[in-house]
């Protein structure tokens, strides 16, 4: 691990994005626009307040998953990864460089969506804004780390795109957004329990509903952070210096 190389990688990725302003605008605005849309679809601040916290986690999770899996796949298929593997850079330097670049975009993305939801759309937040942001950013990082990891199993961008419905949609269906987790049958409940997004959504919902920071929120934060870290380390294991 070498912080200078991690930062150089972060700077390189952010520079690449700077040359693609359309992507940057979409990254930053889309979650916010979806929150606005959601607010007027429900047409009631009460219902909006019930589902909004979960979606503040879900939208960045989904977008970061897509962006990260496509970017890393590109790095693999254009042979820049192979070149980097012949150079003195650690695999974790590369992955943490990615995490830092996308993490900083996630901060902007989430801050805007949360800000608009709180001060314009009437989201009622009982707990701390900072904690809400921390959970949502962690959630975006989790999406990014999963995207990095699964990109190892895609050979083409078509396949990578399709991993989104495979890895992300089941988590959204089972995270308690549509049906409370307590009402699920044992199998679905078990599936929901092993999916990291469920913990993020539960934490977001609790922060919105109550001002006390209870043990469940902290436990869930740790679970989400550990899952993101695990996915990053697994992702590092898929970067091979020697290939057949």
């Amino acid at each position, binding site marked *: 691990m070498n912080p200078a190389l991690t930062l*150089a990688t972060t700077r390189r990725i952010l520079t690449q994005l700077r*040359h693609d302003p359309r992507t940057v605008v979409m990254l930053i605005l889309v979650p916010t626009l979806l929150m606005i849309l959601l607010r007027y679809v429900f047409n009631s601040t009460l219902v909006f307040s019930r589902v909004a916290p979960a979606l503040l986690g879900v939208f960045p999770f989904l977008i970061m998953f897509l962006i990260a899996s496509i970017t890393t796949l590109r790095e693999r298929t254009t042979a*820049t990864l*192979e*070149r980097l593997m*012949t*150079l003195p850079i650690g695999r974790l330097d590369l992955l943490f460089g990615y995490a830092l670049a996308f993490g900083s975009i996630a901060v902007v993305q989430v801050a805007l969506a949360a800000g608009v939801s709180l001060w314009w759309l009437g989201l009622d937040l009982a707990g701390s804004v900072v904690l809400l942001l921390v959970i949502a950013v962690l959630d975006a990082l989790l999406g990014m780390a999963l995207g990095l990891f699964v990109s190892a199993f895609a050979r083409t961008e078509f396949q990578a795109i399709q991993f989104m419905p495979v890895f992300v949609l089941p988590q959204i269906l089972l995270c308690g957004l549509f049906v409370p987790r307590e009402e699920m049958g044992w199998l679905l409940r078990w599936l929901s329990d092993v999916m990291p997004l469920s913990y993020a959504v539960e934490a977001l919902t609790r922060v919105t509903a109550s001002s006390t920071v209870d043990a469940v929120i902290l436990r869930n934060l740790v679970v989400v952070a550990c899952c993101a870290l695990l996915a990053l380390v697994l992702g590092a294991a898929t970067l091979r*210096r020697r*290939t057949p």
Partner: protein
Amino acid sequence: MTNSALEVTGLRVRRGGREVVGDVSFSVPRGAVTGLLGPSGCGKTTLMRAIVGVQIVEAGTVTVLGLPAGSPPLRRRIGYATQNPAIYADLTIREALRYFAAVLRAPASDVDRVIDEVGLADHAGKLVGSLSGGQHNRANLAVALLGEPELLVLDEPTVGLDPLLRDELWALFRRLADGGATLLVSSHVMDEAARCDRLLLMREGTLLADDAPLALRERTGAADLEQAFLHLVRAAS
């Protein structure tokens, strides 16, 4: 301890169930330009990948600058340019090189030096993705020159270039070798072979010849290297 930059013994590589490099042994002297010649698909790229240490090999040893291929200390001492440009298309030439220079801990001044060396000074601010094929190739070559590596492994660096640029690049290779660097340059164009100090002729995964260009012509009695190569191919089959 020998004076060779590269020592390959009994190298065998299998890819997709097929032997693409079969029992190849040779050595490459320091401070010289060695050409790796052969038709496309003969195993040149696989051999180069084994030398830079990214290829899983079946058997044999590859010793680079006195160390086993793929050893971490070598990563700063070898410059490798793949045949297909491996450089970020959505960065400018300068930005991309700045990143690779940072990875190599090369001084910042290196970026402008290598841009000049490959003749891209007028295009340094252009996006890599908007370059012509030949410019793209040269940008890719520039990455390999960063940090003044002791060994340069260049896979078809002159493909798609006009004769003038090709001539300039070969002059650059000569300058680098005169400065003490060792170059292994692959090509499938026989007229480039004459510009090398030594030649490795490859065909279907095996080495047909390992000699100096002049010696090769004399040995085969051929008028030029193309004929010499054909002579060797016929003799082998």
